[in-house]
């Protein structure tokens, strides 16, 4: 073990011990209509919400994307989107990078749920839906089951047992990429997607 490690830990251990304080009570809010709150929060940061069904979402999505002049879409095969210009992210990023950085107009991913309080999607990238899928294309379409919207972060961490099995990467996504670095003026799509479209499956 490194000397630095030993020295740092020794200094910390030599310091006066204090009793760790208990966590006082505070509860994050809950909502009567979680979808309503989710929609309000995510629309406030430039996100788009469409309520659809298991049967209608594909044609609905096709219409939305056509209106936005989207040509090439990135989606995992298991989503069953069978239009012409749909590609899967099925190669290592080293081989796929160029296409990903500039050749894809939109990407569709699933979500593991959402948080009503803050209007956040829980996205867990995996083998079929890698990490950069929801980041590099200019439009991100996220599929969300209405029943998977939790009240708040603490609730979903607990309910889904995150602490016991953290994946490689877990993301909360609350709107499209944005910046206010220039004179506090909001601008969207600075590095990630310019648009975030949430299809809520009811």
């Amino acid at each position, binding site marked *: 073990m490194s000397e630095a490690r030993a020295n740092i830990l020794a200094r910390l251990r030599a310091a006066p011990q204090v009793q760790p304080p208990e*966590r006082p009570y505070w509860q994050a809010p809950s909502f009567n209509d979680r979808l309503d709150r989710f929609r309000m929060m995510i629309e406030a940061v430039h996100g788009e919400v469409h309520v659809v069904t298991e049967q209608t979402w594909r044609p609905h999505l096709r219409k939305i994307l056509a209106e936005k002049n989207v040509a090439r879409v990135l989606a995992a095969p298991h989503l069953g989107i069978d239009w012409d210009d749909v590609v899967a992210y099925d190669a290592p990023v080293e081989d796929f990078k160029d296409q990903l950085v500039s050749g894809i107009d939109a990407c569709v991913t699933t979500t593991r749920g959402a948080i009503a309080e803050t209007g956040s999607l829980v996205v867990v990238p995996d083998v079929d839906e890698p990490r950069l899928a929801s980041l590099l294309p200019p439009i991100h379409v996220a599929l969300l089951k209405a029943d998977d919207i939790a009240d708040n972060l*603490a609730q979903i*961490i607990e309910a889904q047992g995150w602490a016991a099995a*953290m994946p*490689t990467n877990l993301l909360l996504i*609350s709107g499209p990429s944005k910046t206010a670095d220039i004179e506090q003026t909001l601008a969207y799509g600075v590095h990630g997607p310019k648009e975030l479209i949430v299809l809520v499956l009811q």
Partner: protein
Amino acid sequence: MAADFSTRAHDALNNPQLRANFRRAMDGLMTKRAAQFEDKDNWTALRAKGAAIKARALAQLPDLLEEFEQKAIANGITVHWAETTADANRIVLEILTAHGAKKVIKGKSMVSEEMHLNAHLEAHGIKAVESDLGEYIIQLAGEAPSHIVMPCIHKNKGEIAQLFTDNIENQPYTEDVDALTAAARQVLRREFASADAGLSGANFLVAETGSLVLIENEGNGRLSTTLPPLHIAVAGIEKLVEKLDDVAPLLALLPRSATGQAITTYVNMITSPRKSGEQDGPRQVHLVLLDNGRSRVYADEQLRDTLRCIRCGACMNHCPVYSRVGGHTYGSVYPGPIGKILTPQLAGLDCAGDLPHASTLCNACVEVCPVQIPIADILVRLRTEAAEPSASPAVKGAGSGHSAVESAVWKGWQAMYANPAAYKVGTKALSVVGNLIPAAAPLLKQWTSVRTKPKFAAKTLHQLAREKGYDNE
């Protein structure tokens, strides 16, 4: 840059452009934050919880660091320990050299600023490119951040437009924010795609799971930690929290305090490098844990509270000094109230002894701090340590501000106020000769240079009281 705080403050106060830029920005940030915490009872309970979570983690810090390390290693992350910023720079450079890296793309990291990492890498032939828009702008300008959350808050559109025209090929002059943002996106996309490594900080390190939690709005943090084949994170040892669900209340505090947002666009939890079968993500993740004086500060129970800081910047947004003089005036990486207590502790009172005095002790920072750091008390403590050091080993450079004259004056004051006879003689004497002392007298001069010398009353309080018929002194 001028050598001391007061000279720089004087320059800043006489710069109307700078003052207007800061005033507008701070007013906006204060209003947005206030709107987030309208429910006072909820705010009080939430910050008490935030403070307790951080205090609790600090109380168990050595154990949590070991637990975190064990989990992180099991997850495939390589953990390094650095006692000084020089050590941390050396470690980062070694990792990069071992990978033959020539270009590093950086997400926003205050610890990397604390290390002056970019200069170190550049000196060894490695290009470090800042990718946070604000950081990118000040890198083009060759400046340091002036705010820990919004690094280029001191610049206006016109200045940024000019920088872009001068530095980006074929970039016409435009003050349109969307166009400027799009130009940066294009330039930086290329940098991301060709970077050999990504570097980031971390907002929280979770001992329970060995995860790094990073928050941001732009997506550059996600890109820096995902696209290049190598990810190096640098973080102070105080970033630990015990449990994953401790992150929830802290996330309910940090972005709302910082920018008045309910949450940042991205919360990025990283627990391992790319696993086999996964298509992207770095193949190696390294974390450098930096001490740089933190474990020394930790030795003092009062000063330890400094380490609760979650770097939200609310204290600077609300500071009447910061909002008028701006971040560069502090001459240190961390400006504003947190900088005034952190910098002298990390660097030593002998190096940054004037910072604890750059405050009116108005307590605005204490009122908004989401983790209840008693900034004003610590400022007073540091002022005292500079003049009359205690035995605490936590303070570097204690006693460096000691002045025999000042010390004698206070001792005389103390003796006079502790003894009725001396007090009577002393105040009587001042009522007679006080007004004869010129404002430019040696010891008074500095004080009266910015204030009118007060007039001593012709009669002392005792005399007045006696005239009114009170005789029981």
